[in-house]
């Protein structure tokens, strides 16, 4: 879920997960993995702007990181996440082949799984327009510091896997100096940590 006026949410964790996937699925461009992991939120933005999906602060939490309760019944319902991820994967499979399409579809769906861990129970199985269904969410955000630490661990571990894979790939290609791999790894980890910092502190609103 993207950050909004009502509170901050998971971004860097998705980002770190995508970097880690790159280490094992090296044919998939990093930008497409990043886009995949944020895809549900990308679709959420216009629906939020138009008032179809909304977000509010939880009454049991101070406004800020981990305080959000979302009403994203289309983009963040289980069915909606499956459909959006399938569409995303199918589009990229058309251009880059079935394997890459499946990877990107699964990474897109990983967004819902990670959100499931941290969200309070606000993720429906089905959009209410189709049928009433239970709302899921394990609520790790009730412990914002623990959530942040876990998110940071995902960023650091995913970035490390990415950096190690980049160095291995460079060496295998006969590149003597892995400067570009080091720069890429540094940008990935710094980007993730900076995003998490602003998310946790709310300095960007």
């Amino acid at each position: 879920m993207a950050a909004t006026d009502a509170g901050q949410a998971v971004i860097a964790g998705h980002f770190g997960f995508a970097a880690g996937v790159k280490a094992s699925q090296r044919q998939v461009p990093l930008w497409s993995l990043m886009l995949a992991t944020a895809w549900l939120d990308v679709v959420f933005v216009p629906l939020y702007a138009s008032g179809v999906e909304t977000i509010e602060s939880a009454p049991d939490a101070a406004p800020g990181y981990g305080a959000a309760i979302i009403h994203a019944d289309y983009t963040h319902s289980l069915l909606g996440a499956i459909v959006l991820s399938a569409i995303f994967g199918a589009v990229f499979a058309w251009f880059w082949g079935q394997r890459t399409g499946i990877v990107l579809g699964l990474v897109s769906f990983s967004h819902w799984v990670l959100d499931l861990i941290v969200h309070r129970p606000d993720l429906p199985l089905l959009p209410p327009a189709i049928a009433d269904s239970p709302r899921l969410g394990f609520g790790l955000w009730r412990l914002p510091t623990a959530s942040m630490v876990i998110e940071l661990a995902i960023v650091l571990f995913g970035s490390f896997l990415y950096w190690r894979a980049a160095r291995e790939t460079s060496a295998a290609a006969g590149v003597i100096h892995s400067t570009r791999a080091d720069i890429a790894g540094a940008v990935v980890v710094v980007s993730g940590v900076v995003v998490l910092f602003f998310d946790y502190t709310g300095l960007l609103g």
Partner: protein
Amino acid sequence: MQFFLALILFVIAAGIVDGGVPWPRPTRGKP
């Protein structure tokens, strides 16, 4: 929304530097 835009910029930057690493290319073709 400002935060979301910042995220997009970071994603683009990561994508650019990733292009400097000789990764294998995805297999082109229809599913």
